[in-house]
């Protein structure tokens, strides 16, 4: 993160649904920065607001459904909140693009995959059909789709799940975006295919310096590809740290709970142990109280936790947590930061 202008900067992002924003807020004040060539993993469970955060950055909410506000939403010098739909559309592709979770429902079943890959290119760059064809071949080779000339003519149903997800990646990459948002791109895939896709994404990042926001619920995936990770719970980031620090010194009850509930099966001595449970379940957004949303499930909670939302606590220069209980244990007299 540079001091001056981060590549992507999000401050106090709030997203509400329902008429006039009167409905429930699914994202309740999310802030983070992202530098070029880095991967930020957003970790959380269903309903934590991680996908809504991504869709808000892309500006892809259906018109009139969501109310998006933020103190800042800047990408590569552009204020995304001030952009009209035409400007945003011109940015989607060359500046930012997104890979969705389910390649079957995100691809058009009646168009060939070759057509779908070149569509964005023809829209954004005035290239001839012939040049577009060459670019599609190039990007298909890049993501190692075997026999690309033949595969271009295929329809989505003729391809395997892993191959369809590669097509989605090709569509997202054809205009060489500076920011790639991947929303659970491997959740529907088998592990050997997941390993191929993760490997591919990190290779592409090394080559092109793409910034990646990778949304996942799988801490194994975070450990595999993330530079930094932001853990989300009930619409807020509760902890944000470099991946090594997050796993080495988790400083929020929810992060600790997630790590305990995740099997570290590579370590033999861990196998006989029971997985640590997080009691209860994620609260509906309509039932959030005054204080920390995780307090009712938290092993470290004290009565005060349910009364007020804790300030950010600094664990290290790059590691922040929204838990003063644990921060107090991990660091001696805490330096407050707002």
């Amino acid at each position, binding site marked *: 993160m540079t001091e001056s202008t981060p590549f992507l900067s999000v401050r106090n992002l709030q997203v509400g649904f329902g008429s006039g924003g009167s409905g429930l807020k699914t994202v309740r004040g999310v802030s983070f920065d992202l530098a070029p060539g880095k991967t930020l993993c957003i970790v959380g*469970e*269903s309903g934590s607001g991680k996908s809504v955060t991504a869709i808000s950055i892309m500006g892809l909410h259906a018109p009139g459904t969501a109310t998006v506000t933020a103190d800042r939403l800047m990408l590569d010098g552009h204020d995304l909140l001030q952009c009209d739909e035409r400007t945003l559309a011109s940015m989607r592709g060359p500046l930012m693009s997104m890979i969705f979770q389910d390649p079957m429902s995100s691809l058009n079943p009646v168009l060939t995959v070759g057509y779908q890959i070149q569509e964005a290119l023809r829209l954004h760059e005035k290239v001839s059909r012939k040049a577009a064809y060459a670019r599609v071949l190039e990007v298909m080779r890049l993501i190692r789709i075997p026999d690309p000339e033949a595969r271009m003519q295929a329809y989505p149903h003729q391809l*395997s*799940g*892993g*191959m369809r997800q590669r097509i989605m990646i090709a569509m997202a990459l054809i205009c060489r975006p500076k920011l790639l948002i991947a929303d659970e791109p491997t959740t529907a895939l*088998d*592990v*050997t*295919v*997941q*390993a*191929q896709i*993760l*490997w591919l994404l990190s290779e592409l990042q090394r080559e092109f310096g793409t910034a990646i926001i990778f949304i996942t*619920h*799988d*801490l*194994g*995936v*975070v*450990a*595999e590809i*993330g530079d930094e990770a932001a853990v989300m719970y009930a619409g807020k980031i509760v902890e944000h740290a470099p*991946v*090594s620090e997050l*796993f080495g010194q988790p400083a929020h009850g929810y992060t600790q*709970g*997630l*790590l*305990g*509930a*995740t*099997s*570290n*099966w*590579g*370590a*033999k001595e861990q*196998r006989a*142990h*029971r*997985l*640590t*449970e*997080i*009691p209860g*379940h*994620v609260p509906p957004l309509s039932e959030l109280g005054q204080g920390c949303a995780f307090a009712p*499930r938290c092993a470290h909670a004290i009565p005060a936790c349910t009364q007020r939302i804790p300030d950010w606590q600094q664990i290290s220069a790059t590691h922040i947590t929204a838990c003063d209980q644990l921060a107090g244990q991990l660091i001696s007299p805490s330096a407050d930061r707002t």
Partner: protein
Amino acid sequence: MSTPLQTPGRQNAPPLIEARHLVRHFQGHGERKVHALNGVSLSLAHRETLALVGESGCGKSTLGRLMLGLDRPNSGQILLNGEDITQLSAAQLRACRTQMQMIFQDPVTSLDPRWKIASIVREPLDNFAIGQAADRQQKVLDLLQRVGLRPDHAQRYPHELSGGQRQRVGIARALALSPQVLVADEPVSALDVSVRAQVINLLCDLRDEMGLSMLFISHDIGLVAHISDRVAVMYLGQIVEIGTTAQVLDEPAHPYTRALLNAVPQANPQMRRKQSPLEGDPPNPSELPPGCGFAGRCPMATDVCRQTRPELRTLGKGSRVACHLAESLAPVTVQTTP
């Protein structure tokens, strides 16, 4: 090849349920046949948990359904307490169902939305006319308590419960008849991470209390490491390796097992992947290769592998593996936490 597989320490116990040379294929378009199972033999001892792992399309769910008599094999036998259930009439099979039950993957679609929880859990008791009506009602409340639900949940509908609670209802229903064998087909893959550990721990506790045998079908190696006594790895309708959990996870002998384990991301940033993962996809199960199903992706494959299908055979360490080259492969370096 037909000697039943035994667990160390349980040599004297006859298998509770045993599959012998199961073959199941489904009719595809025209002459094409989808070969879901190609000669699978395995056995499950009293109080034993056997995990079936493999990727989508490997035949693990088909095998689970056959073992319960929910589907019939094209050839082969399934012996439940020595009786071949593939030869039974529908009425006879129905009587067997009190001894074996299933927990399904999706807690939303496997519960009737129009039924109250009490009726869902009571249905098996009503079906087999167990006890008086009042006793059944009491039994339902006992079962709900046993799976960690409150008595007032009995009068609710499935949509009023969270995913984890719904899966608890599915477990209560499966246990209502006090079965000997439980087949759990991906019982937690639809649940959030924080709830997954609760349900897995519950399943382990109930299994131990009630002395159940369990066939645990999963693609999640981490969970398998915690829950199972033995592991069978499936690929393209065959068991390619079977042994104790420690044998399979720590000393995998089949190149596919190795690739599969290698592909699972570990929740430990120090164990990041250093080499490129296994390439390719499994072959189409309607066009089986003549030799080893894995030969096309195997880095070690020889001409023998491509021409002759390897059978399961016992290795020196006691596990069984279907690979011509198992002895000549270098031992794996066991991963340990740094």
